[in-house]
């Protein structure tokens, strides 16, 4: 049988970053996956060397729009690690609350896209509708729906008003029925089981080999979470637990994220109800020479920032490692051996949403090999769900 190539990307409206994939397939089976990056490379590490520590927070906020607080969080952790400064309790609580609000909106966003790729557009619409609640809270707190600019070295830039906090918590409580609905659907629906159980499996050994982090690792039973392992902000001052899966398949990745949203709600409730009184800023003066490492458990996993100072107001070196840098590489393993119709959801499962599957910019030509488009991939995935629904009598 001839080997065919399916190019995916680099441009797709539902993805986080433009990336380009080539799926090598034989019949229905995926043989190999090539990943090409760079469509989004903006030279942020180099730009950081020309910015002051205050400006860097705005720069790294724009690394990723979905987890736009993750990089500032790791950045302030890194610079504070270098200085060795302790921040006020109120700032800690605000930081954790912002981090967890972001986890909820990011997981809802992913859940919607996963639903879209599986052929459940209702899930897409409902999840994104629920997400608007979180964005409204962000707009009320910071003035912006995303890129909240909340963090600064030594504390937070903006307070959360004590009189408004109960309203935020009440709005979040109204999300619970929607979250419960999603969880029941994932637990009970035989079609979702058929599409997700045993699909795109990553073993704990795979996770360790690729250094994968976040829900991708936890779905395979690898118990890592920076919030617990290397506590910062208010994470060691509130009650919560790390959510684990065991099978490493798509199903467990969905379940882990759904459970994490419940834990996030618990954390926010403890942080905001009520906020500890006091200052929100430790008023840091200057950064001494040295090195610092800061980490944050973003919705997608550990963000790692390394900063080296020579004593001026700009870093001598700034290194950023996003969780997707580790997680994306696991696709090379997860997608191989599976069928083409599962490729869309597997590529989406680690949540760089990089299944740039609706658009093909075909780059191979003149080779005589037939090119399939990424849009075919989503169609195949959705057709398969429809067939299963018909077979199972759940139209």
């Amino acid at each position, binding site marked *: 049988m001839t080997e065919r190539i399916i190019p995916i990307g680099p441009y797709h409206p539902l993805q986080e970053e433009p990336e380009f994939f080539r799926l090598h397939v034989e019949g229905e089976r995926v043989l190999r996956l090539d990943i090409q990056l*760079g469509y989004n490379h903006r030279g942020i590490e*180099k730009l950081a060397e020309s910015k002051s520590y205050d400006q860097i927070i705005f720069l790294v906020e724009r690394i990723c729009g979905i987890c736009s607080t993750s990089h500032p969080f790791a950045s302030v952790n890194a610079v504070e*690690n270098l200085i060795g400064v302790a921040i006020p309790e109120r700032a800690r609580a605000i930081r954790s609350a912002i981090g967890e609000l972001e986890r909820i909106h990011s997981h809802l966003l992913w859940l919607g896209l996963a639903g879209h790729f599986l052929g459940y557009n209702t899930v897409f619409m409902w999840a994104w509708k629920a997400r608007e609640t979180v964005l409204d809270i962000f707009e009320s707190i910071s003035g912006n729906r995303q890129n909240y600019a909340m963090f600064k070295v030594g504390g937070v830039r903006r307070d959360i008003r004590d009189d408004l906090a109960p309203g935020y918590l009440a709005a979040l409580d109204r999300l619970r029925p929607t979250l419960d609905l999603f969880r029941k659907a994932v637990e009970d629906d035989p079609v979702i089981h058929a599409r997700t159980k045993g699909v795109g499996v990553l073993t704990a050994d795979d996770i*360790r080999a*690729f250094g994968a982090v976040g829900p991708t690792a936890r779905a395979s039973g690898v118990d890592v979470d920076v919030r617990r*392992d290397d506590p910062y902000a208010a994470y060691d001052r509130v009650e919560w637990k790390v959510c684990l899966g065991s099978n490493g398949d798509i199903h467990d990745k969905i379940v882990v994220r759904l459970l994490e949203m419940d834990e996030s709600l618990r954390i926010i409730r403890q942080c905001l109800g009520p906020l500890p009184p006091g200052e929100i800023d430790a008023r840091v003066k200057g950064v001494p020479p040295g*090195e610092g*490492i800061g980490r944050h458990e973003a919705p997608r996993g550990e963000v*790692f920032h390394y900063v080296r100072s020579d004593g001026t107001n700009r870093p001598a070196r700034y290194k950023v490692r996003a969780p997707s840098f580790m997680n994306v*590489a696991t696709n090379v393993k997860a997608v191989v051996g599976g069928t083409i119709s599962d490729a869309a959801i597997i590529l989406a499962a680690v949540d760089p949403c990089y299944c740039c599957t609706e658009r093909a910019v075909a780059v191979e030509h003149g080779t005589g090999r037939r090119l399939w488009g990424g849009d075919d991939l989503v169609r195949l995935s959705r057709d398969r769900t429809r067939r299963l629904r018909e077979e199972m009598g759940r139209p």
Partner: protein
Amino acid sequence: MDELRNALGDLAEGWEERHGRRLYCAVSRERLVEAALRLLGRGLRFATASATDMRSAMEILYHFSIDREGAVLSLRVTLPKEDLVADSLAPHLAAAEWIEREMAEMLGITFRGLTDTRRLLLADDWPAGSHPLRRDGEVPG
């Protein structure tokens, strides 16, 4: 922690301890892979690597997370500017492949044993021999 210090033992050429459970351990480039494998064998997680152009020399830090202690241990390797060659970790650890490719294109370090030497991030038309994070030499814009 003490167990790790013993594990690296003779390979370590110097230890530094910083705020908030951050350890830095200098090793020679010849023994880097051996040191990394000892850490991985003790359950440490490879987080990433960062290379810095120190003007007089090139420095690479390999960051390992000690998850059960909430600490980070970084192996520090210094390469002379005229001989920017290090042994690749990628044959032993898939997680190291992308970051080594990134360091190769950003700073011009050659990793011995790295089979995939394609560019990772820079555009195809980026001039060969130019490395954006280097401090010596012009970077095209």
